């Protein structure tokens, strides 16, 4: 059995927004082992980003325990967490998040420099190889704004791998690129996992990504499931409940338009023909809403 990289024990997260609370994570238990490519699927607002941020030590849970590569991160200071993020975690975000003041090469060098373990020359040497790994060594002197979304995302992957982290965390890595670039990125992830044993945790709502995972979990309303839960229908129902309200809003908008039209006719701002056309349109809208005209 391979080594446990991430272990979450009863992790709980509550956001307090003014007077009400949002339970983003509810007693999540999770183990990620070395060499896994774990996919966590969930719609937006399901708590998947919160989960990723907590594993990546960007956020602290309200309760429970997080153990990252054998270290209990609950007790660590801010600077110690910075060190963990630098050496043990690699991040890939939906919006690439490269630093535009730096070239592709410098972006990949950044985590190496921040680790304090490399001279600039060594960092540069290693970063060039990392860019070669993702097939972008030709673009190393380009700034992010001079690259396509897919290229930027591959630079971000190279950056995430720079310090040879225990785990690479990805938040919708293909969420902002076209299909072709997405295929490239996914095959890159797959290849890095299969061939070199890099551990990945990918959160997404894109079912295509699930295909490359060694394991897939589902998250809804802060709870992890092994099978996809069937809760999508409750949302449709919610819409039916508010149907009356929507219809009333439409009617009130019609009233405002009518008032405006009347005023314009009375003040001579609109000619007769135009006003009549407008009135006809409004009548049709009213009929559609079931009002007897």
């Amino acid at each position: 059995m391979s080594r446990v990289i991430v272990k979450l024990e009863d992790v709980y997260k509550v956001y307090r927004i003014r007077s009400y609370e949002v339970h983003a994570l509810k007693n999540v238990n999770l183990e990620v082992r070395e060499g896994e490519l774990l996919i966590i699927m969930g719609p937006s607002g399901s708590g998947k980003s919160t989960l990723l941020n907590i594993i990546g030590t960007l956020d602290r849970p309200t309760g429970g325990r997080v153990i990252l590569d054998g270290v209990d991160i609950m007790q660590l200071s801010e600077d110690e967490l910075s060190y963990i993020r630098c050496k043990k975690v690699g991040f890939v975000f939906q919006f690439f998040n490269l630093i535009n003041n730096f070239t592709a090469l410098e972006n990949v060098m950044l985590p190496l420099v921040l680790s304090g373990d490399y001279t600039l020359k060594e960092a540069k040497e290693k970063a060039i190889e990392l860019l070669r790994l993702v097939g972008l060594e030709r673009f190393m002197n380009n700034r992010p704004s001079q690259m396509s979304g897919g290229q930027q995302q591959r630079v971000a992957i190279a950056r995430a791998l720079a310090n040879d982290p225990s785990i690479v965390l990805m938040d919708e890595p293909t969420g902002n690129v076209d299909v072709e670039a997405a295929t490239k990125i996914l095959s890159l992830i797959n290849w890095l996992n299969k061939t070199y044993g890099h551990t990945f945790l990918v959160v997404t709502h894109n079912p295509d990504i699930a295909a490359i995972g060694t394991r897939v979990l589902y998250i809804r309303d802060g709870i992890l499931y092994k099978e996809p839960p069937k809760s999508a229908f409750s949302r449709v129902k919610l819409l039916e409940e508010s149907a009356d309200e929507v219809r009333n809003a439409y009617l009130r908008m019609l009233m405002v338009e009518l008032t405006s039209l009347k005023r314009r006719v009375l003040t001579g701002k609109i000619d007769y023909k135009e006003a009549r056309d407008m009135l006809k349109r409004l009548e049709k809208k009213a009929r559609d809403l079931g009002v007897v005209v």
Partner: protein
Amino acid sequence: MFTESMVKFAWLFSARDITLRKFRSLLTILAISIGVASFVSLRLVSIGVHIKVTEEVNQLINADLIVYGEGVCDVPQFVEQLLRAIPHVAKTTSIVMVRGWIESNRGKYFANIIGCDAKSLKEFFNVSLVAGRGFKEGESNVVIVHEDVANSIRATLGKNVIVKPYVMMKGGKGYTAEVIGISKASASIGGFSFFTYCIIPLKDAQELVGSEGYVTYIFIKVSDKEFIGSIKKDIKRLFPKALVTEQKEITKVINRIVNTITGLMVALTLIGVVVAFFAVANTIMMNVREHIRDIGILKAIGARKSYVLLMFLLEAFLLSVVGGLIGVILGILGSYALRELLPQIGVSFIVPIVLDPFTLATGFLLSIGVGILASLYPSWRASLISPIEALKYE
């Protein structure tokens, strides 16, 4: 705390920021440099004034030591003979000096009334005459008038004027004298001369203030400057009640007055420095705002709080170094321009410009200090931004 490569990267980040936002950086640098320039130029000019005034006083009163009493005119004249007997004393002279004014039929003007004998007129007062002549031994009822005074009361050569001291013999009507010489104007600012004067023969002056046999000052020239201290001690021993001043102490007193005026002007230039402070603070604040996402990324990939702080402080440092350098150069040029302007506001002399290294360094350090101070708060705020919030920021 930071490795060399970390600092280099922070440096790179700041330098790119400045080159990517040229116009804004330029405006900030301008604000800093104008603040520094106004400070540097005014200080250079006031140093010039200081030098000029010292020069002027030294030229006018050419004595190494001055002996005087507590009153206006209470030093017995025979003391001069005794002082001359002290070793290393080269020359002495007795001087009467009282505050007073000169009157003509065209008005009156305040002046120091100086009484001295014909010989010491040359030896102790470096009076350069623009017209007329000095007085001779035994001559009476003659006066040498300072150019400013002469112009103001329209006293020309050969004309009679009345010299009146504030403290006068009872029933005195003043001293009527013929203008025989007009001396060159000395340093003045805004029409205020530090030293307007008229010179009359010593005997006449003593009569005028009603104290024959007494003088105000005895001026001493020494044979060698290094004996000034010991001669001063000797005088103190011989005449415990006498007050003894070295010439440089007099210039010190006059310069204190000059410094008050110029100090006020320099203080005004600090307004420019305050403006520079806000300009830098504003630039760094805008920078932080633009880089919120970058701060999030940096923190997510392992940058410490202190590193984010370093990045933004470095940028302010860079701006203020460039602004400071430009400011110092502009300040030097400005001081020359200011010198050309000064005669129009009533400064009667050409101010010498000396590139005082202390002033230049102060101007430069001022800009760096202002830059760092102004960016401290916005940079510190930047370092506290939570990475999650920062990454959500659009």
